[in-house]
């Protein structure tokens, strides 16, 4: 009974994220190519896929280190980017409460936007904690393995790509693909416009704080917009 529930959960979770891999693979390849050209070095840069395992933060980290930004600012910026995981953790906590303690401490390592998105939808329809645990595991591990493989392939490819191909332009393109679906309401749009606009205006800010100033301004603008429009 439990065995078949585990298997069903794992397979369903993996199936649910399969269509999303179309977005994950090119992102991982681009990240690997960036790591290959980074001053950090391809393998330390690539190791962020295991150590950090959050694509946007990984790209920003390498970009900021390459730009010679101070460590504290790089860390703060990456953690602001990843602060959205607090929201995912809060939403998943009531479901994860029923999992064994060891699992509650290990599974969050593989938490991602995509694993969160498919799981929280499925959790609305099912109650069995064993199924829930393995559904998340199947989804999250599929993403983890795909991310590691595409990072390594990207690093290998990146060593062959000449700079004249402007492949670094693929970085903002990947962010653009993530940005568009994140705008679901007018306050979201205002957060994006202000975030982008202030980041451009603050690009010359000392210590490489421009990105963080832009991001925080965008968040504040979104909160105000939501208050005003309600």
């Amino acid at each position, binding site marked *: 009974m439990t065995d078949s529930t585990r298997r069903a959960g794992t397979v369903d979770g993996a199936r649910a994220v399969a269509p999303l891999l179309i977005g994950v693979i090119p992102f991982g390849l681009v990240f690997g190519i960036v790591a290959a050209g980074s001053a950090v070095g391809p393998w330390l840069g690539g190791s962020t896929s295991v150590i950090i395992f959050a694509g946007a933060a990984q790209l920003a980290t390498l970009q900021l280190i390459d730009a010679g930004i101070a*460590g504290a600012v790089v860390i703060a910026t*990456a953690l602001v980017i990843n602060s959205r995981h607090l929201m995912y953790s809060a939403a998943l906590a009531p479901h994860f409460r029923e999992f064994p303690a060891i699992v*509650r401490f290990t599974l*969050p390592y593989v938490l991602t936007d995509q694993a969160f998105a498919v799981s929280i939808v499925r959790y609305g329809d099912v109650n069995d904690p064993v199924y829930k645990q393995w559904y998340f595991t199947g989804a999250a591990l599929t993403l983890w393995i795909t991310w590691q493989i595409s990072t390594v392939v990207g690093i290998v490819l990146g060593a062959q790509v000449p700079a004249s191909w402007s492949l670094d332009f693929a970085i903002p393109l990947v962010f653009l693909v993530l940005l568009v679906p994140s705008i679901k309401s007018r306050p979201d749009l205002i957060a994006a416009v202000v975030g*982008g606009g202030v980041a*451009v205006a603050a690009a010359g800010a000392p210590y490489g704080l421009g990105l963080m100033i832009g991001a925080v301004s965008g*968040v504040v603008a979104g909160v105000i917009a939501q208050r005003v429009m309600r």
Partner: protein
Amino acid sequence: MTDLAIILTIGIGTYLLRLSFIGILGDRTMPDWAMVPLRFVAPAVLAALVAPAVLLKDGAVDLSPVTNPRALAALVALLIAWKTKNVIAVIVAGMAAVWLLQALL
């Protein structure tokens, strides 16, 4: 600070953010004043990552397709991202646009 130390700190910090409510804060629910801003992190951060990368050239806003083909190419990519939400289509179209502009202008 070494690059490795920076990366490890971000890795540990990111794990703790993911663990927060699941493993540490447990039954507590997040208050609204904390939850609402988090909803805007994705659009604000992603726009803050994209805009300077495509609009700035040598530190100044440059929208000319001749000197900064990335701005126009990004606009093409934005339209495709909006219409299709297909990552590969966006990357291919954006890269093709930037190569074409570089070759033609």
